[in-house]
């Protein structure tokens, strides 16, 4: 397989100029304000299954999104057609649409004084993610799969080992003269083996490593072995009777609770009264040991950006501090609606208005090891997977499918499956009785191991 770098020849230098010229043309056509975003990226991915290359994908793309304001009316358009006629249509389309939308007194781009770029090296871009020839990238995928399959004779099949690399370039410009840009890189590797027991029953799990530079990617063997360990421990799973016991969530599963907290402090949900945390600022909403931070400025972080999708510098925002709700996460619009200040959490793709996105969103770690937390439980459930979408953000009601390991006298005893774990997030946040010391970022949201009391397990 020949090295093929032609398509990866890097980002187009003209994006900054294009964004600025689109803003200038929109303003000349009568907009009172405008904002353009250009997103371009190059991706490579490969999957190796049972030792053979299954897919090999390589591509680059570039597209533009535009928001125009006519006083308090606004609309947006996007296009992957960056020819002159495409840009013409982008601009005129936005004007036509804006004329039919409503006046919204809260609409608008940020004030000039709010715009800016977080200074300092955020360590987001490393060109080494594309430094390897395709054969070596494929070899990463092959090695991580093989490590999982070689780990145990019960490893019988596989959904493959994968290696991905991507670089992205983002440009944001607005009619206050803001023009910002940044590049990000990432590479990742994953292994998804399948184990089978004597009865023929199969279990699948996976593990992965994600980094901004090849230098920080874990070894394929370490990833494969961890994938095998996570898969093997699920073999022979049984169903248990319904019961109320303490549950311990492994960091990946606990991370999904952090996602729920993010949804509940999302300014959009808050001003719409669609969150169980709406109207609770300054109140105690969680146990006293709970501190949740959103930080868009952590160097190398997967949720790090120098500025948000409206050109406001990202920041560190304590969301919950010692159990007290300190801040929602806001963009310009939701901040105005709530009479607050933006927290630099505007997030947008190419289409539509900015929404809210997290920076690096995490639960501060505690001092106990996962083993100590499990060791202190007589009877309980260690949850390793949640399944389904049974979370109602309006009420906080929570009921999700689960798989895990039964805890008996402080030890992991046997795997269980086909059960649900249910409660209400309002209670769950107050019933997090222990927090592990194992905080680790494998994405923009992260949590250490946590123990939650008072949840109901439904089974046979």
């Amino acid at each position, binding site marked *: 397989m020949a090295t093929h770098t032609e398509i990866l020849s890097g980002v187009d230098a003209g994006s900054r100029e294009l964004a600025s010229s689109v803003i200038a043309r929109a303003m000349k056509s009568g907009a009172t304000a405008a904002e353009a975003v250009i997103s371009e990226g190059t991706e490579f991915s490969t999957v190796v299954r049972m030792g053979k290359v299954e897919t090999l994908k390589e591509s680059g793309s570039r597209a533009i999104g535009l928001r125009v304001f006519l006083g308090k009316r606004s609309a947006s358009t996007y296009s992957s057609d960056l020819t002159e006629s495409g840009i013409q249509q982008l601009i005129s389309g936005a004007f036509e649409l804006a004329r039919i939308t409503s006046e919204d007194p809260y609409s608008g781009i940020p004030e000039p004084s709010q715009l800016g770029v977080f200074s300092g090296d955020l360590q987001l871009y490393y060109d080494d993610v594309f430094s390897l020839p395709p054969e070596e990238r494929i070899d990463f995928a092959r090695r991580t799969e093989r490590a999982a399959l070689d780990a145990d004779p019960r490893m019988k099949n596989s959904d493959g080992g994968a290696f991905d690399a991507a670089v992205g370039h983002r440009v944001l410009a607005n009619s206050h003269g803001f023009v910002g840009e940044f590049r990000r890189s990432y590479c990742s590797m994953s292994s998804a083996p399948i184990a089978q027991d004597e009865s023929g029953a199969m279990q699948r799990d996976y593990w992965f490593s994600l980094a901004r530079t090849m230098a920080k990617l874990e070894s394929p063997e370490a990833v494969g072995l961890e994938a095998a360990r996570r898969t093997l421990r699920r073999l022979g799973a049984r169903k248990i009777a319904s019961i109320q016991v303490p549950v311990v969530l492994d960091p990946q599963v606990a991370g999904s609770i952090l996602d729920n907290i993010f949804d509940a402090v999302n300014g959009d949900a808050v001003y719409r009264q669609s969150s169980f945390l709406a109207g609770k600022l300054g109140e105690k909403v969680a146990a006293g040991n709970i501190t949740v931070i959103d930080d868009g400025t952590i160097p190398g972080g997967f949720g790090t950006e120098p500025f948000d999708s409206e050109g406001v510098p990202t920041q560190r925002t304590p969301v919950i501090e010692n159990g007290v709700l300190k801040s929602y996460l806001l963009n310009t619009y939701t901040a105005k609606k709530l009479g607050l200040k933006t927290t630099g959490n505007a997030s947008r793709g190419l289409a539509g208005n900015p929404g809210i996105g997290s920076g690096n969103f995490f639960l501060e770690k505690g001092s106990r090891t996962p083993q100590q937390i499990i060791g202190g439980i007589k009877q309980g459930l260690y949850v390793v997977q949640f*399944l389904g979408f049974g979370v109602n953000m309006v009420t906080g009601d929570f009921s999700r499918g689960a798989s895990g390991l039964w805890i008996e006298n402080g030890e992991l005893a046997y795997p269980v499956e086909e059960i649900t774990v249910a409660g209400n997030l309002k209670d769950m946040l107050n019933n997090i009785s222990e927090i592990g010391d194992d905080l680790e970022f494998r994405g923009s949201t992260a949590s250490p191991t946590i123990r939650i009391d008072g949840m109901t397990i*439904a089974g046979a």
Partner: protein
Amino acid sequence: MTQNQSLFFQKFGITPNDLQRYLGEALSAGGDYADLYFEYLTSTSITVDESIVKSASQGISAGCGVRVLADDRTGYAYTDDLAPEKIMRAARTAALIARGPAKSPIEGFKENTSHQLYPIAAPSAEADIAAKLELVMRGDRAARAYDPRIVQVRTGYFDEVRQILVIGSDGTFASDVQPLARLSLTCVAKSGENSAKGQAGGGGRVSVDYFQTERTPEHFAREAARQAIIQLDAREAPAGEMEVVLGPGWPGILLHEAIGHGLEADFNRKGTSAFSGMLGKRVASDKCTVVDNGTLPSRRGSINVDDEGSPTQNTVLIENGILKGYLSDKLSSRLMGMPDTGNGRRESYAHIPMPRMTNTYMLAGDDSPEDIIRSVKRGVYAVNFGGGQVDITNGKFVFSASEAYMVENGQVTAPLKNCTLIGNGPDALTKVSMVGNDLQLDEGVGTCGKDGQSVPVGVGIPTLKLDRMTVGGTGR
């Protein structure tokens, strides 16, 4: 020449000669098959929130994906620039998957005769935006008028027109213009300390007229508001195994999660599905016959041709409880020596096609819905659902009811909240003891995710009784 052939041939200046050249480049290092997928997608979205138009957006996305198959390997590259040199470059990249002497595509193309399941729509951006906006405003007004306890309403309208052209090295030549529209509402109701949410929506491969005549904004608005109000008084769902009755229509998501994904040919080819090797075996009670039918007129999950250019079909998956077939695309069909069922779908030109469902439903039985409810001693009657998910390999699936009731001694009693159902795919349908005579398909809001790719789908069931299923609430 059809509308979208002219789009790609005239707007982008592509000629049949070019197509042969691109395919030739794609097969320059050998390979068994190559195809080109041209896509031109226009979309419109309008959101009304707090009774004002908060967001209006239109967009265009166009591109071409080139795929090369060599044995069970897939090479893929795409470009969002349809200039000839960019497509050639993508073809050259995809070709790298193979390593042998060059092959040639078949000379000339043959266009399959296909269905015409939906209206040929004008590109979204050209249709009347004011008419669409009025639909959204009507939905907002109707939901607010339903009950003073409705405090928040968000109404959205979304439509798109996807024009595709699929060219294969085996002579495949297929084109389609696929409209898709959806109107949806979310309501929040408040009463004292209690809050609740209701959601409704629908649509399909229809034009905007559908929402004036067939399913009005008021219809969806009343439904969303009604659900929110009912949920205000809902009590905790019970926990444990019990009888479960599923209402007709959207609860058919049970089929989608419990068996549909497990019957996609790629998982079975690789032996990673809990259904692997079960063809000809009993996987459901003999009252169950399940099909995947991509040929229903105007349905959200319907398509004239799949994203590999093959005509869609009505495929029997389970007949009287016996597993009859898998859902296949070209790759799995060739490798498994089984028929291609026309289920090769992809999210866009940037994605590799794979076997996906279209409209998956169970055929009607003989029982009346009333008799089914009457037969339940103690159980749950679930009539509306949010999403669901399945672990293909161990077969465990969950789906969460957004509207459900307790059934006690044959009577529907209190509304329930927080009601998730969990089961095991290969045996869930063996517990089906009654099948209603009231088959319904869903209203047209389903989107299915697999390997990070989303495609629109439909589901349906008649009222069904499962003798045993685990209900995941917190109550007794």
